[in-house]
């Protein structure tokens, strides 16, 4: 690329945008907590992404978040993410600048400068990591994402269901190996290839993907996904400080930000976990089922949840209460901290909260790509508000 890298502020000035939010340590910790709650049991451990973002801020770099309505139509953006095994990431944190390299290479491939980045999903890893990368790059983060939850595969986004694609995707590793994946409109093949590349790299890859224009961002993303996560995290942290019910505060925040009702449907403790390997539906993900025994007003009831990295569905006493892509969160009743599928243990106690997926995730194409039948259930999708209305 020609020309000098500029700062986020220069970019916003060039767009004539005065409407942005400054992300400090408190903000990123709230966004990450909120994103972890929305991650539906997946998304990974937030520690590495948070420490990375703190370090970027400590180095004096600025991280700014801009509303999608404020960005010009023609600009080039891309999403940044970590793709691979969560356990490997905790052992092999990234080199600084790894996503910088992926973005630069994508710019070369596109022959256009990338002027803003987008988190791909809401999750403990990919939410903060996108902010750290934006800080290192000196570009703003756009207040959107492709899911407003976490999903296990690269193509499971509102972007794909609205007709834009992950290709070209640049996948790099810490040794500066670079792979360009360009499968045109075949997003499933892109996912397969990206996953294999990650394996070959040693379990983890760092990707710049979904190169979208400003207009595409507005037309196909989950708008204000970052603000939704931020408000959720802020509500839960305030509840902790003021000794309020974190779950009530979370539900209030979702009502305010998205005008949707979440449902508090169960309180219990994990009494059985069955992890499965090698079923034909296993595409390289942790599959299994969790059984929770009810406590307090739910005593005597039994909840069962299937998971494929994320929670897939919820049944209470055999009755289906939630199906994908609607969100399931098991939260610590006192702290509101989410319980992830990769760290849950026998005896964990929590409250189950159900949240309607964003409408851009619920289109017919979305239900086809990540609804109940995609995950092997012989069930039609019924919205969570109908199941619990």
């Amino acid at each position, binding site marked *: 690329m020609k020309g000098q890298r500029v700062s986020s502020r220069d970019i916003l000035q060039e767009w004539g945008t005065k409407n942005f939010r400054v992300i400090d340590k408190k903000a990123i910790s709230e966004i990450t907590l909120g994103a972890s709650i929305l991650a539906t049991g997946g998304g990974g451990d937030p520690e590495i992404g948070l420490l990375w973002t703190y370090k970027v801020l400590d180095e004096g770099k600025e991280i700014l978040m801009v509303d999608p309505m404020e960005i010009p139509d023609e600009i080039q953006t891309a999403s940044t993410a970590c793709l691979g095994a969560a356990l490997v990431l905790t052992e092999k944190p990234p080199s600084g600048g790894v996503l910088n390299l992926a973005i630069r290479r994508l710019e070369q491939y596109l022959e256009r400068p990338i002027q803003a980045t987008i988190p791909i999903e809401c999750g403990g890893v990919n939410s903060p990591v996108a902010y750290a990368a934006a800080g290192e790059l000196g570009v703003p983060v756009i207040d959107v994402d492709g899911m407003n939850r976490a999903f296990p595969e690269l193509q499971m986004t509102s972007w794909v269901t609205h007709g834009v694609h992950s290709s070209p995707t640049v996948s790099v590793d810490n040794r500066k190996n670079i792979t360009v994946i360009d499968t045109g409109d075949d997003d499933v093949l892109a996912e397969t290839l990206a996953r294999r590349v990650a394996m070959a790299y040693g379990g983890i890859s760092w990707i710049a993907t979904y190169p979208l224009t400003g207009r595409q961002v507005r037309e196909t993303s989950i708008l204000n996904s970052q603000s939704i996560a931020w408000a959720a995290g802020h509500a839960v942290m305030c509840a902790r400080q003021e000794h309020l019910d974190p779950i009530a505060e979370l539900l209030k925040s979702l009502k305010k930000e998205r005008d949707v009702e979440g449902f508090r449907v169960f309180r219990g403790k994990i009494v059985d976990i069955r992890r499965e390997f090698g079923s034909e539906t296993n595409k390289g993900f942790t599959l299994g089922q969790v059984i929770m025994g009810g406590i307090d007003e739910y005593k005597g009831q039994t909840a069962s949840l299937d998971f494929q990295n994320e929670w897939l569905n919820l049944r209470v006493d055999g009755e289906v209460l939630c199906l994908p892509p609607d969100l399931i969160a098991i939260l610590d009743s006192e702290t509101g901290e989410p319980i992830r599928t990769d760290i849950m243990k026998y*005896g964990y106690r929590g409250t189950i909260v159900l949240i309607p997926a964003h409408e851009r995730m619920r289109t017919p194409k979305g239900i086809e790509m990540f609804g109940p039948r995609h995950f092997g259930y012989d069930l039609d999708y019924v919205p969570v508000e109908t199941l619990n209305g």
Partner: protein
Amino acid sequence: MTGELRVGFDVGGTFTDGVLMRGKDVVVKAKSLTTQDVTAGIVQALDALLNKSRVNPAEVAMVSLGTTHTTNALIERRNLNKVGIFRLGAPATTAIPPLTGWPEDLKQAIGGVKLVHVIRGGSEYDGRDIVPLDKQAIAEACRKMKGKVDSVAVTGVFSPIISDHEEQAAEIVQEVLGDDIHITLSHRIATISLLERENSAILNASVITVMQRAVNSLKTAVSERGIKAPLFIVQNDGSVMSVDYAVDYPIFTVASGPAASVRGSVYLSGIEDGVVVDIGGTSTDVAYIVKGFPRESSITVTIGGVKTNIRCPDLLSIALGGGTIVKHQGEKVSALGPESVGYNLVRLGKSFGGPLLTVHDTAVALGKLDRKLEVFKTDFVTHPEKVNALPRKLVDNAWAAVKATIEEAIDKMKTTVEPVPAIFIGGGAMVVPKEGIAGVSKVLCPDHFEVGGAVGTTIAEIGAYAEGVVDLEKEDRDNAIARVTEQAKDNAKTAGAIRETVEVIDVEEIPFTYMPGKREKVRIRVKGKIL
């Protein structure tokens, strides 16, 4: 070992408890005030034991202790070593350098970031090098830190699975800095999760000298009194390790105290599986025991303000103790605590004529306080008549609230719906309900529980573990588990156990998510006998 004499000490915040045991019997007990240097308090208790029992010191077969030496040094940032820090992982990992997130004063106390070196090296999960180890860079860094460091900590990416680079780095460090330099290798300290393991290794390296001094002065004190027995220290899982092993792994003693208490109550009660409820004056700790050992916590443990992945007992602490204040409006209980009158019970509690209603007072009012412990040397006697004025309804409500609180805590720690036995220990055990506790098959209050921690140190069992990553597509699951088990048994032997007596306590499997195939991490805990 039934007839052998064993001496055990439990160093607490206020008191150091000592016991002399013969088999399962407590021969004598002693209490001394814990001293600043810790060791003097232990020696006082030892002298008291020997004087009271009049046994021949030469007959003592084992001396063991649960100690707070390392914990105190870390919390107070006192007498810490200057640590040379190597991470083998560049070009990966550089986004988050060593000591990120450490409290500034602790960073300074161990020498600070100028002693940190991130070196090219480390492994991938499947055993390949990330890049070849940059040996020259290690040698150069060592030459620079010569004379400025007391110990060295080396952490390599994926070293718990492939330790080659850490071992090679250690050789170079030894070569340049000499045989006297103490080296901590992270793979011997903790498990997968680089940052937490690295923190654990650095903390370990920082308290090497503290532990060496403690062990040396204890060895001297013991041999001066004619005791020829080997010395052991309780480690975090409640088993013991020989002091010669402990001087290399002082970080394994940070949870020594609570682990010893759990083990003591197991030993005194004879219950191997169930819950231990340790009720003090201001708080209650609940632990779950599996095959005689406290269940380990699966979350990070913060030591001195630093996140580590040192394995510690999974304890649930709740603000309920004998001195907890019962808040009420009329006959209705609005809250139990969290405040406690603590040591001021005898001044502030209703049953002593004070103004506040405490958990202790409700037990007095209900006539439940039926025994007084010899070891609590107090002249204060309770006065039921002073609490008779309380409304009976209020007392009943308070008693029910205490019972519900304990029941909830027990239930939180249980992993099955079936009732399990519960062991109630600690000074507060006398003043809480023990009948009809939900989820519990029976409640035991063993004798001598007030010195349970000291008794717990005398159980001559060594604990160890091993872990590995297995690919279930390439290796049969049973074979994989057997292979890791053998490694764990070897480790137990190294720590001082008789290999033939080593048995498995726990098998843990953690799948690698977001990755095709059937890879998982297997971790196996074992225990074995010493005597």
